């Protein structure tokens, strides 16, 4: 398996995508899995969630978006498959059974009136079983065979990053061709602002000048309100004006008591500007490399 990944925001996933999503908090899950579920339910896709969870607790539906799963369950557009039924044999995770269940569900959805099919499951529990890692790897290969050729189905495999070793994460990640992340909070074709969770912060892409100070201020306010260190990844930011740097300095100063604002992956040009105008002006703003301290 090679190491090539396509990175996509969840809103831009395509049929045939068998995507990897490792999370480290509920907020992150709500952003990504929630958007995946909502996107399906609101556009007439069949949505299948393999989980033991109560439908009312599915991420990103009721809490902020007031989507009641019951109505979708009644029409069959939303289906909850408990792992015990879909992928356990005598209490042990059975990759063949899960793949067979999935193929069955996909085949049935073909005959229903749905535009497409979305499947997601949190595989963390399976990895944690005895020889779970290898079984999940088998399962992923089977899922890939079922999903990748499809012109209607897409899937997200969720893993709780905090429950896995680095080696496990690397091995599992490599069975996917697509890495899925949160949709941008803002995207007007010139500037994209996307929440990031590991490390916590924002990814800025494109050009940031006076025309977008207001949206940037709002995003910065929201992300710094939670406290702790905040990383602004500026790798793909081609331009930032002095006004936006000034806003960063202000935010960094306000949060100085409870965290640091760190600029990650700044280009040499941007680093020079920050150091030149910031040596004295922005003492709270740090230049970093994306690593959490």
């Amino acid at each position, binding site marked *: 398996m090679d190491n090539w990944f396509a990175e996509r925001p969840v809103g831009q996933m395509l049929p045939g995508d068998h995507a990897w999503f490792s999370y480290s908090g509920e907020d992150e899950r709500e952003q990504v899995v929630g958007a995946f579920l909502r996107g399906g339910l609101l556009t007439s896709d069949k949505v299948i969630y393999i989980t033991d969870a109560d439908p009312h607790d599915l991420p990103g539906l009721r809490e902020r978006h007031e989507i009641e799963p019951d109505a979708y369950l009644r029409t069959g557009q939303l289906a909850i498959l408990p792992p015990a039924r879909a992928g356990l044999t005598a209490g042990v995770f059975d990759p063949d059974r899960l793949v067979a269940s999935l193929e069955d569900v996909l085949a049935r959805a073909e005959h229903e009136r749905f535009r497409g099919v979305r499947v997601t499951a949190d595989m963390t529990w399976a990895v944690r079983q005895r020889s779970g890692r290898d079984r999940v790897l088998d399962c992923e290969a089977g899922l890939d065979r079922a999903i990748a050729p499809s012109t209607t189905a897409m899937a997200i495999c969720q893993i709780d990053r905090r429950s896995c070793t680095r080696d496990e994460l690397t091995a599992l990640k490599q069975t996917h061709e697509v890495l899925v992340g949160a949709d941008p909070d803002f995207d007007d074709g010139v500037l994209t602002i996307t929440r990031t969770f590991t490390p916590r912060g924002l990814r800025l892409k494109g050009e940031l*000048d006076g025309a977008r100070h207001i949206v940037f201020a709002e995003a910065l306010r929201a992300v710094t309100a939670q406290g702790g260190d905040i990383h602004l990844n500026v790798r793909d930011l081609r331009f930032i004006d*002095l006004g936006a740097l000034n806003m960063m300095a202000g935010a960094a100063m306000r949060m100085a008591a409870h965290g640091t604002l760190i600029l990650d992956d700044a280009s040499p040009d941007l680093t020079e500007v920050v150091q*030149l105008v910031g040596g*004295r002006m922005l003492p709270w703003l740090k230049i970093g490399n994306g690593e959490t301290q």
Partner: protein
Amino acid sequence: MLYAGEDTLLDAALPFLTEGVEAGEAVLAVIPAATTGSLRRALGLAANAVAFRDAAHWYSQPPRTIAAYSSFIEDHPGARIRVLAEPGWECGSEAEIAEWTRYESIVNQAFAEVDAAVLCLYDRRTTAADVLDGVLRTHPELVGDSGPCANDAYLDPSTVYAQVDGQPLPPVPAHAREMPIDGIDLCALRAFVGDHAEDHGITSARLHDLLVATTEVATNAIRHGLSPVTCRTWADDRDLVVDVTDGGHWEPEGLPGFLPPDPFVRAGFGLWGVRMLCPLVQLRTGPGGTAIRLRVRAR
């Protein structure tokens, strides 16, 4: 002090620096690299108590120089400051000389509250006449054979400031390329300036600095000025000039953009940043409108 040979330079510099070292002052010598060796040798052990800085780097552009002095002062809280400075400017154009003259004048005002003694040295043989003329207008005392005495030619900083700004900017040449700026979205402006700058061999970091400076000036014109806002750019000898005009009459207070802003307030951060980034910034404003002209060397 105007001098005319290394001997006279050392005769003046040595007692000035030694006195500061002996008094436990924070002593700084900003001098050309070529002079550093002989001055260090002449000072002997006392040289260890003197901070030496290369004038060529220190005097790169006025706000950077002011910021550097501010940092030195902040790094020595409570100490009396003693500075020996020999800028050794190689400034060519009239506009650059005018801006350095303004700088020399501003520091009298900006650091008036600082307990400091500053001795500026100019080599009578190599310093241009225009520079010397400025020096005489901006130093309250001159050191002669009999020691320091009041300089009758000294002018109040606000007078020098007005003199510099009284010089009109050269007219925009007919071949200048022009772009109206009609909104705060400045991507197109950056593309316009970037294309011309690259045509003139300005690339990478200097281009980036120019685009940040241009964007800032245009943003201010849009937010605080009056329409029409126009950007013009042209090549002038070895320089690229970017000129942003608007129809408003801006009446700035104090010393706009020359002094480092208070980091807790950060008012005036924008224009100060522009002056830090761009080698020459000229501001002219009046009832007919406001113009800010940026000039970078195309190397």
